[in-house]
């Protein structure tokens, strides 16, 4: 799960990290009001779940409250990488002497949380990693013992020379580690971590990604979810216990298991079609999941054919068949449905489908080819 910058800053502030907060506005008038209250220059920042906001024109400096209103007016409603800006953060503008990057990420290769810090901050750290990898200092943490004080001091000393700033940064790193663990994050970064001309160390921008598997035990973090920033169908899918990702093609796919779902999408492409979505109905599929899956897929006007590909293991194929029959009674489905199922209770499933007027296929390749042909209008 992604959270917004202003929410990430709240997590930092809760640990005591110095971070100029600002306030969130949803209208230009609010933006002006907040800027007036803060006094001085402000930065108007689009709150969307994507990087590269600055490059897209979603971050602007405003020197007066009136200018803050104008900038907010321009940014609100803006489209950044397919996401509409619904909120802007109005943050006090800071005088910056230096910019550093500090971040901690759950790293698959090290199988541990790994720190990445760089004195070259303020820019895209992936670019630094690609062009100047030697400018990034990495340090894995053994989570059984935690992030040790001397490690924080060591990393901080790679960023600053001034002993006061080193101590301040070491403290911030430890606080960030605590925020990372407490949020159940897979990534927590401050970019930039600045020094001011008077020597203070402060966090100016922050990003957290949350491990979805943590959410069941982190209700406070789950509460940070902003459903307005997600596609409505993906919200619906999550609530129904499905994994759904919309794509641009016209063959709707309903599959059990993520690997088989990806392989099915690939096969659609292989046979000349384009998948409309990734949809995994998961393991123990009750008929209701299938109904919800069909509801979600049929909201996409691009879908010209729907393909079921079910390999029954834990999933009972008769449950899927019942779901298909129920769903087609409940919702108007105006596109052809191709059903491939094999495995657990296959005979019962085929009988249920036959009684409702559906035929089922057993071969994955044949079913995919048929769905592609139907989507193209090349088959009846």
């Amino acid at each position, binding site marked *: 799960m992604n959270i917004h910058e202003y929410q990430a800053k709240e997590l930092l502030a809760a640990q005591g990290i110095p971070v100029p907060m600002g306030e969130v506005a949803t209208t230009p008038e609010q933006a002006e009001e907040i800027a007036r209250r803060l006094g001085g220059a402000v930065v108007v920042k689009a709150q969307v779940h994507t990087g590269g906001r600055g490059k897209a024109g979603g971050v602007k400096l405003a020197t007066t409250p009136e200018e803050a209103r104008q900038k907010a007016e321009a940014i609100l409603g803006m489209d950044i990488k397919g996401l509409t800006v619904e909120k802007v953060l109005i943050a006090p503008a800071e005088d910056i002497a230096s910019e550093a990057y500090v971040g901690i990420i759950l790293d698959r290769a090290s199988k541990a949380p790994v720190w990445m810090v760089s004195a070259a901050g303020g820019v895209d750290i992936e670019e630094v990693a690609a062009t100047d990898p030697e400018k990034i200092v990495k340090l894995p943490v053994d989570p059984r013992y935690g992030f040790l004080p001397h490690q924080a001091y060591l990393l901080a000393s790679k960023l600053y020379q001034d002993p006061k700033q080193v101590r301040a940064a070491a403290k911030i790193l430890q606080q960030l580690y605590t925020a990372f663990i407490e949020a159940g994050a897979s990534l927590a970064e401050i970019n930039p971590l600045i020094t001011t001309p008077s020597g203070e160390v402060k966090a100016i921008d922050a990003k957290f990604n949350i491990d979805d598997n943590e959410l069941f035990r982190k209700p406070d973090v789950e509460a940070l979810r902003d459903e307005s920033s997600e596609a409505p169908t993906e919200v619906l899918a999550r609530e129904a216990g499905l994994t759904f990702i919309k794509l641009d093609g016209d063959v709707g796919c309903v599959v059990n*298991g*993520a690997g*088989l779902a990806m392989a099915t999408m690939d096969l659609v492409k292989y046979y000349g079609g384009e998948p409309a979505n990734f949809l995994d109905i998961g393991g123990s599929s009750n008929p209701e999941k299938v109904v919800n899956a069909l509801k979600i897929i049929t909201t996409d006007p691009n879908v010209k054919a729907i393909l079921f590909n079910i*390999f029954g293991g*834990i999933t009972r194929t008769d449950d899927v068949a019942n779901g298909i029959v129920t769903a087609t009674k409940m919702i108007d489905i105006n596109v052809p449905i191709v059903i491939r199922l094999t495995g657990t209770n296959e005979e019962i499933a085929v009988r249920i489908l036959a009684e409702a007027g559906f035929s089922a296929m057993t071969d*994955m390749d044949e079913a995919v080819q048929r769905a592609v042909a139907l989507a193209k209008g090349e088959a009846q």
Partner: protein
Amino acid sequence: MSIFIDQNTRLVVQGITGRDGSFHTRQMMEYGTKVVAGVTPGKGGQTFEGSVPIFNTVEEAVKEAGANTSVIYVPPAFAADAMFEAADAGIEFIVCITEGVPVLDMTRVRPYVLDKGARLLGPNCPGLLSAGKSKVGIIPGHITQPGPVGLVSKSGTLTYEVVYKLKGAGIGTTTCVGIGGDPINGTSFIDCLAAFEADPETKAIVMLGEIGGTDEQEAAAYVKANVTKPVVGFIAGQTAPPGRRMGHAGAIISGSAGTAEEKITAFRENGIGVAQRPLDVVDLIRGVL
């Protein structure tokens, strides 16, 4: 022969009385797996299906019933502790089926289990099946038969698809292992490749990967350096858009690392035959046997 489990596997089921645990315990017993014990705290002294003793702790299951392998079907909130418990009890091989285990939990569980000298498979995996001998987990028993192919995969149902197609062509397996797609787990492709290389009955290896991370690339380099048996591969997710999590926590393309194209190239460069479709695995395997 086979890898990791065989007719000498003595299994304890952690979470035997739960919905999934009881269903799959029956399936495993039907297949011939020696299920010697179950564990559900508070239900010690009862029996499962009138024959399998239930204990309160894994330690008792080891001492009283001689369990050497465990399979875990408990909810995500309790999965980490179940793995710690199995390792503490001296279980040699721990298979965690549970999906949705927090990754931070795994950063602590993995080194703990390894330090105890145990092997961990999963979490979020379908388990494994040594054809005709034993199955631990949720892989359906009827989809494969004994034969010369060793299979290792990140996925569940995609594994079923491929071994079922192999069976349709008359080709069976030694062991099918589903390592799961989580970012941090117990057993890697490389662990399985090494075991298949050492297993005299395995004549060829199938490796099913997917987008995300660099496990497949590292495995490909390992194959070139250490594996003398022919290896055939498939990568799922060629049409997946970057930056989106495709169901498995690990299946996300970020930056340049982890695309299907990159993995397919790594396979080819290291002498691994690449199947374009799952179906093509059959011909490639036929060609090398």
